[in-house]
């Protein structure tokens, strides 16, 4: 009864076909089957946000989604956002402001921050904190992350930093 299931999905613009066990979550599928290890696995129960990816344009926790649920879906991971240049400025702002130390939370932070900036181009610090509240960082104390997101928002909307 626990046979593999055939899935077909788009990952970072490429078609992927695979046979997977139902119990395999999307994060492990991306990391172990597709070797897209930018998606990090932290808590595995939806609390830390390190595994955040985009599914059909919306950010989701890939540890709380089965690979079989991603059948027919369009997935974008940190590799996709990075390679396309969509978040080059945000990544640069994180570097410049030291908004990462160990880097474990960074892919999820970038995913979530970019999601906010797409929906609300000029967020205030409270909105930034609110949107990032489901992503844990144990190094920076968040201040620098909020700074980097704020700086990027200002630059994108043509305001001086």
């Amino acid at each position, binding site marked *: *009864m*626990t*046979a593999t*299931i055939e899935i077909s999905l788009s990952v970072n613009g490429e078609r992927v076909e695979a046979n997977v*066990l*139902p*119990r395999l*979550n999307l994060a*492990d599928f991306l990391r172990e089957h597709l070797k897209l290890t930018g998606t990090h696995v932290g808590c*595995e*129960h*939806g609390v830390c*946000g390190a595994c*955040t990816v985009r*599914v059909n344009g*919306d*950010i*989701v*926790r890939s*540890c*709380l*989604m*089965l690979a*079989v*649920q991603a*059948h027919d879906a369009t997935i974008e991971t940190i590799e996709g956002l990075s390679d396309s240049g969509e978040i080059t400025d945000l990544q640069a702002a994180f570097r410049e402001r030291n908004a990462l130390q160990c880097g474990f939370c960074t892919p999820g932070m970038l995913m*979530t921050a970019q*999601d*906010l900036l797409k929906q609300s181009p000029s967020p205030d610090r409270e909105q930034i904190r*609110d*949107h990032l*509240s*489901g*992503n844990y960082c144990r190094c920076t104390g968040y201040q620098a992350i909020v700074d980097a997101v704020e700086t990027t928002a200002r630059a994108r909307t043509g305001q001086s930093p």
Partner: protein
Amino acid sequence: MKASAFAYARATSVANALELLSVHGERAKVLSGGQSLLPAMNLRLIAPELIVDIGQLAELRGIVVKGGVLTIGALTRHADLLKSPEIATHLPLLKDAVAHIAHPAIRNRGTIGGSLAQADPASELPACMLTLGATIIARGVGGERRIAASEFFAGIYETALTPQELLVAVELPVPPKNSTYFFHEFTRRHGDYAIVGLAALAAVEDGRFDDLCLGYFAVRDRPLLAKSAGKLVDVAVTSAVLSEACSALAEELDPLEDQQATPAMRRHLAKVLLTRCVASLLARRDLCAGGPA
């Protein structure tokens, strides 16, 4: 951790899902958004033999307003409720409550039907259903059942649903135009499950409550529509009246003890919420001054 092994069936229609549930019932779990089910499976708190995935059933998604009733399909996501102009117009209480559910990435997957069927006593939506007088629509192979929200929640993670039934929608009467509402919850961090929360709906006329519904959550094993609200209706609310209502409220609660709070702390916070709620709905700041806040 990882979930233990299970078999998987992607339902192709509601009828197909009901067939699967009628055969596998007790051994199966319905998967909609998975934001409560998958953490529980990853933590090995539960290990269903079969997962029936209803995520593709578009017929269970969407919000319809007709004849003074809002019908919300079970697969409507929290994010959809938050963005819906119908909800913002007719049920602003629900919109406010949904903004307190977890975080954006969770709200993009979690569904109203999933949240109600899960029946976590500390979650927001079950209490909102009581306050708003919702009817839960459950479907089985034999047909449909309409269950009043007040009869639906039966305990921690327990509802009136049988293992063979599927929650397909909820119906919510549109509150009268002059209704006002209050929503607040105490949490350790934004997005956490509530330590205590209150979803209230009221009709206020000349500084008095014509009607008042107080839906509390995280105050016992299921959401509670507080009877002590009756002490505040059709009377001139004074500090003494409010204080009496607070005492009556504390008697009604049966709070659980957990890592977050003791029963005494939950009783105290429930009284604080009642005081703030009444002061806010009646626009009477003076009532907060002498209360337990």
